[in-house]
């Protein structure tokens, strides 16, 4: 034959190399886009700049948690890579950046995208591409409520309507004769809260003596608060994002008015309370709710979950450990990792969605004791429990026990 043995050996070597590159000849059926044998690719859009840049730290805290998990060997041997893009809280930028995550970076899922409008703008796109849009960082009720029409989208935090239903319960229990004035932001956010309060009060909705709306772009809600005072309200609800909420707290004191104040949880982190205090707010009788452990609360100093959080967040050089947004990020990343762990060897988008929507059932070390992250085949709201907190002058004090609203939203 006269075959050159050297050439034959080279050909054999080539074939062996080819075989090695090809890996396991049996196709692994249980993986999906964004998953390799040793990695999982997730992506997010968040506001690292722009008007809502205060939220940007959430993405960094989530990344810190994934880094921590990777340091322990990852999820079933796969390390998590997390792509963070800055959409500046502008839906016009969320759309191309999300396309980039899906089509160019080929992520397994988008995780914890920020903002109601921003995430609404890509919900149809992600659902049509069948890419999981998991645990969006907004409490708009629609993200869990409309799961049947958007089966690739889920929220995580308690929905705004659930929160204000808890306020309604507290009012009916502790202030059944309250004269309620409501200040709400004139957008889906404020209206979501208002609807929950009205529904929660039910037959007692007549306790609301006046409700005033303001535009988030308005200079200040002073005129509306003066009207609520003139309507003789003795209890005031502030359904407002941080800036107008802080302004309202200051204005209430300036009006020499001392109502019982219910402050929505979005605006209750310590930094905003400190800002209100610095500008002259009395902060007497302020009530809110919480479901996450407050990093500034001394009662958690020796708590194992809090200590774990402090270790995790130390790896993020730009994250302030006392910022409530950071423990939020770590807590939601914990649930994401839980979903991936549960998926085990069946790492498909469909299976991940199935677990997130129907089979979450866990306690989360960063949430208040007793709060469960739970979904069932008929209830896709992950967190529906919160505890009432009151402001003690320097921090929040937990009151009573956990209030459970599970099952009230469908």
């Amino acid at each position, binding site marked *: 034959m006269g075959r050159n043995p050297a050439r034959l050996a080279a050909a054999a070597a080539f074939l062996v190399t080819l075989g090695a590159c090809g890996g396991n000849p049996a196709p692994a059926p249980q993986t999906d886009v964004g998953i390799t044998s040793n990695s999982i690719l997730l992506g997010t859009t968040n506001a*690292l*700049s*722009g008007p809502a*840049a205060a939220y*940007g730290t959430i993405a960094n805290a989530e990344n810190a948690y994934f880094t921590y998990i990777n340091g322990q060997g990852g999820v079933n041997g796969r390390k998590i890579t997390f792509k963070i*893009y*800055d959409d*500046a*809280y*502008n*839906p*016009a930028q969320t*759309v*191309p950046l999300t*396309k*980039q995550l899906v*089509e*160019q970076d080929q992520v397994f899922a988008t995780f914890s995208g920020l903002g*109601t*409008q*921003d995430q*609404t*703008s*890509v*919900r*149809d*796109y992600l659902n049509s591409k069948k890419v999981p849009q998991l645990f969006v960082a907004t409490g708009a009720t629609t993200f869990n409520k409309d799961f049947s029409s958007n089966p690739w989208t889920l929220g995580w935090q308690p929905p705004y309507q659930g929160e204000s239903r808890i306020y309604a319960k507290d009012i009916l229990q502790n202030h059944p004769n309250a004269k309620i004035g409501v200040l709400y932001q*004139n*957008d*889906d*956010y404020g209206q979501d809260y208002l609807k929950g309060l009205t529904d929660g009060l039910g037959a007692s909705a007549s306790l609301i003596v006046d409700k005033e709306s303001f*535009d988030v*772009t308005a200079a200040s809600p002073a005129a509306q608060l003066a009207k609520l005072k003139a309507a003789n309200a003795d209890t005031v609800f502030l359904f407002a994002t941080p800036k107008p909420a802080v302004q309202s707290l200051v204005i209430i004191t300036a009006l020499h008015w001392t109502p019982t104040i219910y402050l929505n949880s979005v605006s209750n982190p310590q930094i905003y309370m400190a800002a209100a205090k610095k500008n002259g707010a009395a902060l007497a009788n302020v009530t809110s709710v919480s479901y996450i452990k407050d990093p500034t609360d001394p009662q958690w100093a020796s708590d194992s979950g809090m200590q774990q959080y402090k270790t995790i967040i130390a790896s993020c*050089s*730009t994250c302030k450990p006392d910022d409530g947004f950071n423990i939020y990020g770590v807590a939601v990343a914990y649930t994401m990792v839980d979903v991936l762990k549960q998926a085990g060897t069946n790492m498909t988008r469909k299976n991940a969605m199935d677990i997130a929507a129907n089979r979450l059932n866990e306690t989360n070390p960063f949430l208040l004791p007793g709060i469960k992250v739970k979904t069932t085949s008929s209830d896709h709201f992950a967190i529906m429990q919160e505890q009432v907190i009151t402001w003690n002058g320097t921090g929040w004090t937990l009151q009573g026990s956990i209030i459970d609203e599970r099952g009230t939203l469908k």
Partner: protein
Amino acid sequence: MLQRIRRAPPRYWLVGVVVLFFIGFPTVISSFLASEWAQALILAIAIMGLNILVGYSGQLSLGHGAFMALGAYTSAILAHRFKMDLVATIPIAGLLTGMVGFVFGIPALRLSALYLALATFALAVVTPSLIKRPAELTGGVQGIILTQPDPPAFAQSAYGFLTGTAMTSDQWIYYICLFCALILLWFAWNLVRHRPGRAMRAIRDGEVAAAASGVNIAGYKTLAFGISAFYAGIAGALFALAAGFVSPDTFPVSLSIQLLVGAVVGGLASIPGPLLGAVFAYFLPIESSQWVPNQSWIPDQIASTVKNAGPAVTYGAILILIMIFAPNGIVGLLHRGYVALNRRLRGAADRETGQMPPNPQTV
């Protein structure tokens, strides 16, 4: 015909090459990149309109984002509430916005440069709030979600024949944007080289002199506003089409500023300027925010600061550099380079006798 083609000046050939490039471009890049270039083309259309107003007629506008919003919402409402075909709404959105712009141009006649800038700025500021009000019509804060059209059969088969792959809706939208951009570019080209363009430039360079020469000042100024708003309206409608979503936050004040920056950087009073300006205004913020954090040689602290400050830092720095070294924009810079090269090639002999290059400010 052949004679005419043979005698065509070189810049016509350049135009042909650029057009062919843009037509062939999506066949070699990913569908995602095509959608990004579609966005850049949309910005180019809006900037082209702004350029007619600012560059040629000399009126400053800081509120073109508002006209884009009007166009986008017209298109979205027609498609969503009245079930019209999304592509068919584009000219309607343009005409309606053009009419509004024309009407807005009438009070603008009484405002001199700075006050006009403020008035248009106010328009950009109030627009997001105004959109929220008739919530049944505009969808309020939640905005309107639109279904992106699938490519029609003829486009599908043509694209499939050329590349052998299926056409995505992003690629189809790119071609719609390119088609609109080419028509509007051709229209702008003709406009500025004929009577209206000359009249506008005359007004810009000296209102009294223009009036003395019989130019209808009020007429041409409002016309410039109308045409400019027409361009912005088309851009807005395409924007709604490409994003598949409109909401009040989609049209922040910064969009209007971005358009003006694009017009100035590209080169005022030039036809190719808006295209270059749009590529700059669209890609630089994206690239700078994604490039900086990936550079290992930049110390972590600086990188994270730049990342958190967003694209603004790099964007600002490059903008300052351009304004120092290319005060007439990118087109001005290219033109200067071309003239210098030409002189050197021709030699010193006819340096003084060579044809005077046209001033980029007036061509």
